[in-house]
C-alpha cells in the first residue's frame, strides 16, 4: 500500500467518523443561538471557536460533514445505479442503434456546463439538498456509463465470456455475473474520485445558497456566512474551508492509491 492511500484513507475515515458521531452526539446544540458567546477564537470549551451566532464551530463542522457526505454519496449512487447498467447494456449490444443512442446521449450531458445546469435546476425547483443531489447526480451518469462501456468492451472478447455463452447464458446474465465483477475495482476508484468532486460541488452549491437550507449545517453555507466576517474572525472562514480541502484531498489520495493497488501496471507517477 502506498503512503498516499494510507493518508487518504485516514483523512476520509476521520470525516466519516465525525459524520457518524454527529448522528448520535455533537458537543453543542447548533440550533439555538448564544449571542454572548459569538466569534470566540478556539479555546478549551469550543475547540474550533464559535461563529457569529455563538454556535460551536466543531459541532457545525460535524453536522456539515454529514450533509456533504450524504449529498455526495447519493449523487455518486445515482450516477452508478443508472450509469453502470447503461454502460453494461451498451457494451453487450455494442454497435447497435441503442448503443449509439446511449453513448451520444452521454456525450450530450458531458458537453453541458454542469454548474450552470445545477444552478438552473435548483433555481427552478427551489434550493434543497435533494435537488442538489439530483443536479450533481445527473452529471455522474455519463461518467460511469462511458467508463463501464470502455472497460466492458475488451472483456466481451475474452475466452471466459465465450465459454459462458457456450453454456447458454444470456447477454444480461453474462453482464451481471462475469463482466460486472471484473470492472468493479474500476468503479470503486472512479466512485472515490466522483465522491470528491461531489463534495466540492455540494460546497459550491450550498455556498451560493442553492444547497441544503438552514438549519441544516453545510460547509459551503458556513463559508458563505463567514465571508463578511473574514477580517474580524478569520477562524470562522478558515475552519470549514480546511474541512472541505482535507476531505477532498483525502478522497483524491485514496482514489489514486486504490488505482495503483488494483492495477499495479499503471504507476501513480505517470498521471
Amino acid at each position: 500500500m502506498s503512503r498516499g492511500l494510507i493518508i487518504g484513507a485516514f483523512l476520509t475515515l476521520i470525516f466519516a467518523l465525525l459524520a457518524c458521531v454527529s448522528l448520535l452526539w455533537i458537543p453543542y446544540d447548533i440550533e439555538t443561538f448564544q449571542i454572548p458567546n459569538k466569534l470566540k477564537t478556539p479555546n478549551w470549551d469550543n475547540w474550533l471557536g464559535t461563529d457569529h451566532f455563538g454556535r460551536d464551530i466543531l459541532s457545525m463542522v460535524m453536522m456539515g460533514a454529514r450533509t456533504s457526505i450524504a449529498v455526495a454519496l447519493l449523487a455518486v449512487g445515482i450516477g452508478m445505479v443508472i450509469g453502470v447498467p447503461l454502460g453494461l447494456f451498451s457494451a453487450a449490444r455494442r454497435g447497435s442503434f441503442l448503443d449509439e443512442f446511449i453513448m451520444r446521449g452521454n456525450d450530450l450531458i458531458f458537453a453541458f456546463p454542469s454548474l450552470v445546469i445545477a444552478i438552473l435546476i435548483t433555481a427552478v425547483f427551489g434550493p434543497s439538498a435533494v435537488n442538489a443531489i439530483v443536479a450533481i447526480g445527473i452529471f455522474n451518469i455519463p461518467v460511469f456509463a462511458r467508463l463501464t462501456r470502455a472497460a466492458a468492451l475488451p472483456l466481451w472478447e475474452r475466452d471466459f465470456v465465450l465459454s459462458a455463452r457456450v453454456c447458454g447464458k444470456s447477454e444480461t446474465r453474462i453482464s451481471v455475473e462475469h463482466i460486472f465483477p471484473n470492472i468493479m475495482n474500476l468503479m470503486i476508484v472512479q466512485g472515490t474520485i466522483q465522491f470528491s468532486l461531489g463534495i466540492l460541488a455540494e460546497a459550491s452549491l450550498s455556498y451560493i445558497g442553492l444547497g441544503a437550507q438552514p438549519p441544516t449545517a453545510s460547509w459551503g453555507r458556513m463559508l458563505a456566512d463567514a465571508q463578511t466576517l473574514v477580517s474580524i474572525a478569520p477562524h470562522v472562514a478558515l475552519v470549514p474551508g480546511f474541512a472541505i480541502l482535507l476531505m477532498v484531498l483525502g478522497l483524491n489520495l485514496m482514489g489514486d492509491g486504490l488505482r495503483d493497488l488494483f492495477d499495479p501496471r499503471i504507476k501513480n507517477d505517470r498521471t
Partner: protein
Amino acid sequence: MIRYTFARLTSLIISLIVASLVIFSVIEVIPGDPASFMLGINAREDTLAALRSEMGLDQPLALRYFDWVIGMLQGDFGNSWTYKTPVSELIADRIWVSLPLAIYALILSTLIAFPAGILAASRRGGVSDVTIMGATQMGVAIPNFWFAMIMVLIFAINLRWFSAGGFPGWSDPIQGLKSLTLPAISLALPQAAILARIMRSSLLDMLSEDFIRTARAKGLTRRQALWRHAVRNALIPVITIIGLQFSFLLAGGIIIEQIFFLPGLGRLIFQAISARDLIVVESVVMLLVFTVIIVNFAVDITYAIVDPRLRRKS
C-alpha cells in the same frame, strides 16, 4: 477531414437543439406556470394575465419554443421582466466583465501550468517533481471560492494591494485589469493544477517514445530533445484540455463574480433567480451552454487539424 467536420457539425447542431429543449422544458415544468412563478402567490389576476400574454403563454407550447429559438437566432432574447430592458442589452453590458475574466484566468492557468508541468516531467522523481505534484493535489482539492476569500483577506484587507471587490469599468484598462486579478487567480488555480498534471503525464509519455531516443542518438542533449521534440508533441492533448477549461472558467466565473461583486453574467443570473425573472435566467443559461458547446466543437476541429490520426479513425 470534410467528413469529420461534417460529422462533428451534425452533432453540434443536435447538441444545441437538445440543449435548448432541455432548458425550455425545465422552465415549462415549473409547478403552476412561469407567470405565477415569477409574480408569486399574491399576484393580482390581471397582472398575471398581462404577463402571460407578454410572455406568450397563451400560445401553444411548440409555437412558443420556436418563437424563443428563432428570436435568439436573430439576437432577440426577449425583454427582462424586472429590468424592463431587452435581455440582449443586459448580456451585452455584462459580457465585458465575464469574458475578459475567463480569458485572463485561462492565460494565468496556462502560464502557471506549462512551466510547472515541464519542470516536473523533466525532473521526474526529484524534489521539484514531488513538490509540484503535491502542490497540484492541493490545488485540485481547494474550493476556489474559499481560496478567493483567503486571497481577499491577505491581499485586499491586510496588504491593501487590490480592492476586495467591485469593477471600475474599462475606461481605465489598468484599473479594470487590476480588479479582475484576484478573481482570475482564484478561478485559474484549480485549472492550473489539473493542466500541470496533464502536461506532466503527456510529456512523460512523449519522453518514452522512440523518436526521443532517436533524437538523443543523433546527439541532442536531454534538454534539446525535450524542448525540440517532446514538448511540441505533448502539447496536442494539452491544447484540448485548455479548450475544455475555457468553458469551466466561464461557468465557474458565476460563483467567483458573486464573491468579488463583479457585474458579470453570473451576477445577472443570480439577481434574475432571486427576482424570479425567468426570461433572463433562460436566455443567459442558453447563452452559456451555447458558448460551451461551440468552444468544444472548435476544440474538436483544432484537434483534428493538429493530429491527422484522429481524422482517419472516424
